[in-house]
């Protein structure tokens, strides 16, 4: 290429490129088609009276797709027309996914911020009727922190131990088949619906073992939901710890369990924490198992083992179902608090993951 250009100059480069790759739309083709389509849609809008911004946009997009594909077909041929069509479709799917996310976050922030205040965070719903303004979600926030906290205290160590078994012990030992079964069921467990887990905790712990419907019963359900996520993420982290680290440790005569605790775990710890936090964020918003395993409460109950205890999701459910203006507003306030809680966990987890991944040798 460069040899030819130096002889013949710019014009022949263009000719040569055309000969090699066929005729293409000019660079300004796509934006131009978009502008024309939008203008035409607004024009049509005035003539046919299609209402609203959404309608106009839909028409504009359809015109753009038709126009661009047609133009490309006539200039570049079928293959490139199809390629442009696919590109447009793929960009459109992404926009389509962003729209609900933005719409949802905007709704929650706008509606939630109307009731969010310091008293909303520090008072309970005790003796506040559904119709009246005021009240708050302190009792629910406390309940969520306790229930999720207990679930994390049980679920995270269990999950990490299971992952250690799967990665460090099982493959070399005699129990390879057992490990394979465990691994399979960890995967299957991720797919068990949360409402089924709630049913299980109710039938096993409440009906059979005589436990009360309580915050702790909810914690058990959340633990079960959290476990497979912790196992999988920890497993993945342990697997990328370099083998040479373990071998160096063994070479120094350090026992296997100390190698795992002092060498393998510290190396992978950032990733393990990230996985655990994502698991916690995932269960913090679970509603169905809580509805089945706790009783709703309007007042503060710091004891997760006895009596009714609300949590943020059940508070939202309760307020939203009450259906009065005041209670629905409170539900949106609760949604905002819950989403902030989850997103903070999520963001911190991702930041830890980015800045402190497994140390490479």
């Amino acid at each position, binding site marked *: 290429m460069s040899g030819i250009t130096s002889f013949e100059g710019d014009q022949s480069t263009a000719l040569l490129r055309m000969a090699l790759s066929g005729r293409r739309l000019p660079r300004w083709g796509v934006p131009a088609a978009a502008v024309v389509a939008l203008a035409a849609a607004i024009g049509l809008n005035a003539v046919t009276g299609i209402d609203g911004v959404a309608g106009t946009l839909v028409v504009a997009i359809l015109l753009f797709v038709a126009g661009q594909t047609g133009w490309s077909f006539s200039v570049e041929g079928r293959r490139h027309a199809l390629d442009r069509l696919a590109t447009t479709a793929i960009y459109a799917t992404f926009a389509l996914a962003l729209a609900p996310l933005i719409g949802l976050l905007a709704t929650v922030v706008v509606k939630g911020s109307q009731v969010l205040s310091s008293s909303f965070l520090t008072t309970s719903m005790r003796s506040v009727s559904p119709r009246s303004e005021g009240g708050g979600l302190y009792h629910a926030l406390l309940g969520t922190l306790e229930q999720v906290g207990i679930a994390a205290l049980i679920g995270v160590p269990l999950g990490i131990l299971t992952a250690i078994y799967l990665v460090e012990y099982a493959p070399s030992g005699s129990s390879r088949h057992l490990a394979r079964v465990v691994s399979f069921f960890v995967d299957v467990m*991720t797919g068990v619906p949360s409402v089924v887990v709630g049913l299980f905790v109710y039938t096993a712990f409440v009906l059979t073992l005589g436990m009360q419907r309580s915050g702790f019963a909810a914690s058990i359900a959340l633990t079960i939901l959290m476990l497979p996520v912790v196992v999988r993420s920890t497993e993945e982290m342990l697997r990328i710890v370099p083998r040479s680290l373990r071998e160096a440790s063994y070479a120094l005569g350090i026992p296997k369990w100390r190698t795992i605790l002092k060498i393998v775990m510290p190396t992978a710890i950032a990733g393990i924490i990230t996985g655990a936090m994502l698991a916690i964020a995932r269960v913090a918003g679970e509603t*169905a198992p809580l509805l089945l395993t706790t009783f709703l409460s309007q007042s503060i109950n710091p004891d997760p083992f006895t009596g009714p205890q609300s949590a943020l999701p059940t508070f939202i459910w309760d307020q939203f179902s009450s259906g009065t203006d005041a209670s629905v507003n409170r539900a949106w306030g609760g949604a905002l608090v819950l989403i902030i809680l989850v997103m903070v966990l999520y963001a911190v987890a991702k930041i830890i993951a980015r800045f402190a991944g497994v140390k490479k040798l």
Partner: protein
Amino acid sequence: MSTTLEPTGTPVPSSAARGITGASVRPGDRVFLGLSRGAGLLILLTMASIAIFLVVKAIPALQANTANFLTSTAWFPDQSPAVFGIAALVFGTVMTSIVAMVLAVPVGIGIALFIAHYAPRRLATALGFVTDLLAAVPSIIFGMWGLQFLTPHMEGLGEWLNTYLGFIPIFTNTLGLYSKSILIAGVVLAIMILPTISAITREVFVQVPRDHIEAALALGATRWEMVRLSIFPFAKPGMISAAMLGLGRALGETIAVALILSASYDINRHITEPGGNTFAANIALRWNEAGPIGLSALVASGLVLFVITLVVNMGARAVIARRAEFSGAN
């Protein structure tokens, strides 16, 4: 998953190395192995007891039931004699999931393609993070948003479908009411399972060997032809299992559906009309008002849901087992 357990694929010392360290004789190791194996066994125990307890507690209602459990659409388990069946729940669950899958699978694959192969490298990580955020939104918030925000916008679509596609039975609307419908529930479910589908397909798409992609492009393929020739064939098992895992999530989703549908126990083919019910939503809605047999009946319906999701998930695992290491749990 099975291939990840092959000794060659794991960074664990071979049996020879173990012999040198003498790992098996140390008491600390025995304790630690016991603990970690116990944790693994606890997972098996949990899964087994879920099945056992659901079966045991479902029996009283199934014995008391005077209607056909599979074909009846009624739900009066606390009457005497008890009359209930899951036909309406099966229909509602399947229809909402079909709507969700029809919408979410192509869009989810599109998003994955966009992030893996179309978006600029620099932007891709951030975009991946944004779609993951969608997964972090609690389902009850999806339900509230679907009911209060999406429903008014969807009513126009319902009317449009009735006017122009009304000759297709499922789009007919004889009531003139368009809220609280299976269609809206399905759309919300689609949004909720999008991140599941796109995250897993994305994982597979980025693993397509560079050589396959460059070979296709070097032969003069357009980008779309490259996608069809190099990416899709390689990623097919991953895409199928991503779709199945998404389906599993849609089948079991509770609160969002419970908020959106106006629960009714009939089989209504017109998906833009109010009504419909699903297994999971029915459990949440009927739970607190149910008597002993009512609870048992709900457990029985939960057992059916458990079995269905189990089959779907195991299917997904079986498909992907050939190309291990995508689990959906991450």
